[in-house]
């Protein structure tokens, strides 16, 4: 690899662009309900985690989010569990998603925070709009930390940490993917 500052910068721009294109395509799979195709983007040992937030004193933010693998989490799953969620929706009997919701996943403030040959760590913000039945509307906004692995020309998602900016969930359920 050529290591001039400019080529290194260019490589970063290209990588960020590729990641962004990947996320846009991923969002599109979810928003067009191609859930099984979405599963194909997940690493076999994916870790998918969304902690519960609580209100803490300034400077004592250590406990703001519940701990993975120890406390209550909105999600603390792997590939099997995510597959099960997809299959539940596909039964057509999962009334919380039948008829299935309309969603738009938006990704912003994307940064590649670290990358080497085997992994790419990214941070971003997400904004998800959900509308179901007639007027039921939810907004899910927060921060996402991902670990991607290069896979052929694309990526596989190896880990996803989702920090929802709500302590009391402002929606009746979490039937969607983040």
């Amino acid at each position: 690899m050529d290591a001039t500052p400019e080529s290194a910068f260019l490589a970063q721009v290209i990588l960020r662009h590729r990641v962004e294109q990947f996320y846009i395509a991923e969002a599109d799979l979810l928003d067009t309900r191609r859930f099984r195709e979405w599963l194909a983007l997940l690493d076999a040992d994916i870790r998918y985690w969304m902690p519960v937030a609580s209100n803490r004193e300034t400077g004592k933010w250590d406990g703001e989010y519940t701990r993975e693998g120890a406390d209550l989490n909105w999600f603390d799953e792997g590939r099997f569990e995510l597959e099960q969620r997809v299959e539940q929706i596909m039964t057509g009997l999962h009334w919380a998603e039948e008829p299935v919701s309309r969603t738009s996943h938006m990704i912003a403030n994307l940064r590649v925070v670290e990358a080497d040959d085997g992994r790419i760590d990214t941070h971003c913000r997400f904004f998800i709009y959900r509308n179901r039945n007639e007027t039921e509307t939810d907004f899910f906004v927060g921060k996402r930390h991902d670990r991607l692995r290069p896979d052929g020309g694309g990526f596989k998602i190896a880990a996803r940490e989702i920090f929802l900016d709500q302590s009391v969930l402002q929606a009746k359920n979490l039937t969607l993917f983040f």
Partner: protein
Amino acid sequence: MSGGGARRYTGGLVNLDKGRISREIFTGQAIYDDELERIFARSWLFVGHESHVPEPGDYMLGRMGEESVIFNRDRHGRLHVFLNNCRHRGMRVCRYDSGNSRKFACPFHAWVFSDEGELIGVPKLESGYHNELDRSQWGLIEACVASYHGYVFACWDEETPAFEDYLGDLRFYFDDYCELPDGTHGDWEAFGGVFKWKVPCNWKFGAENFGGDYYHNPSHASVDAVVLSPAGTRGRHTYDTVSKTRAVHKLNILTKEGHNARGELFKDDYAYVPTYQEMAVVEDYFRDCYAKRQAKLGEKARWYGHGGTIFPNVSYSNGVQSMGTWHPSGPHETEIWRIFLAPKSAPDEVKNVLRHYVIRYQGPSGLTEQDDMENWSSAHQGARGTIAKRHDFHYGMGMGHERKGWPVSWLGGEIYATEDVSEQNQRAYYGRWARDMDRPPFQRKPLQAAE
């Protein structure tokens, strides 16, 4: 609106002789206001588990009715439940969901209260109040507290019977819930964090669903189709580790207090079924617990509770060991709080299996409870229409078929049971609700000269 005159609830909006209940009790604003006064201000309400506040100074916020409360353990180790409301102008004196503190300082004008609720600090006591403020009269408003097997309940009304009497004939079933898997009454430990979420339905939908609605199982067909079980193999419940090769009595238990329980009474074959073969530690734990439970409880080990509702707004689930509280937030919204617990003495592997299972079962991300939320919010909408409201809901299933004390005498107290599906539990619950709602409203005492 009702002013303590003629009964509007018993035999009126709640007509159990006909098995009918007006949809208005779920949607009416005036009825809701009466509920806060006549039910929430007078009942024992669940605030948390002792393991949430293990050390002196530990606190967590709770809710009673629509109001925030502080559930804490003071420096001497005593439990308190205070209205989280400054005596000066009502600001919340605690603004953090949990923590450890020896005092609660109000941010507005800085009145300071101790962890025992006393008003210990008032700025400008001399220059502003000229030392004329009797601080002993202005401590935090404190509720009566009862800790039952570590589950902490609080009540604002000193005339309400003591918690154990309030629990009444549910005691056998709630004791059963509080038992560890080995049948002893050891310690439970709450997992960190509280699930809190908002559902657009009246708070009573959850309470009645958990109290007796076996009938709604079809709504969980998708969960059964994909198989959700602690071991990832069979069944939907932890208690499915017991064989059901012969029939069980699937029972609805109502108590005269209006509390409800559900569960299964096994006949003779309820042998342990190895369920966790891929997890040796977990398998050993449950097999061992099963044997100890048999030895300790004898014939009573045949009872496997599934859960129930303690009037008015807390539902417990055996097996997934959770407490869900249906906090009223106006007639059309409920804020649900849910905690999960594990046997404190269990190996970490067991705790993790239970934790992982319950968060995938219940709560807003739980495969099962997601559908309940859909049901209740849609049912709530269905109670609101002008035309719809002219037509009562039907609560008549199994009317007249309740059997006292059946089928075994040792199932606790003066209970009635029906098998499989029935709405007797809901009828008992709303019977209690209507009786409480018919009580005269709270009358504020005239100001005393001394105040």
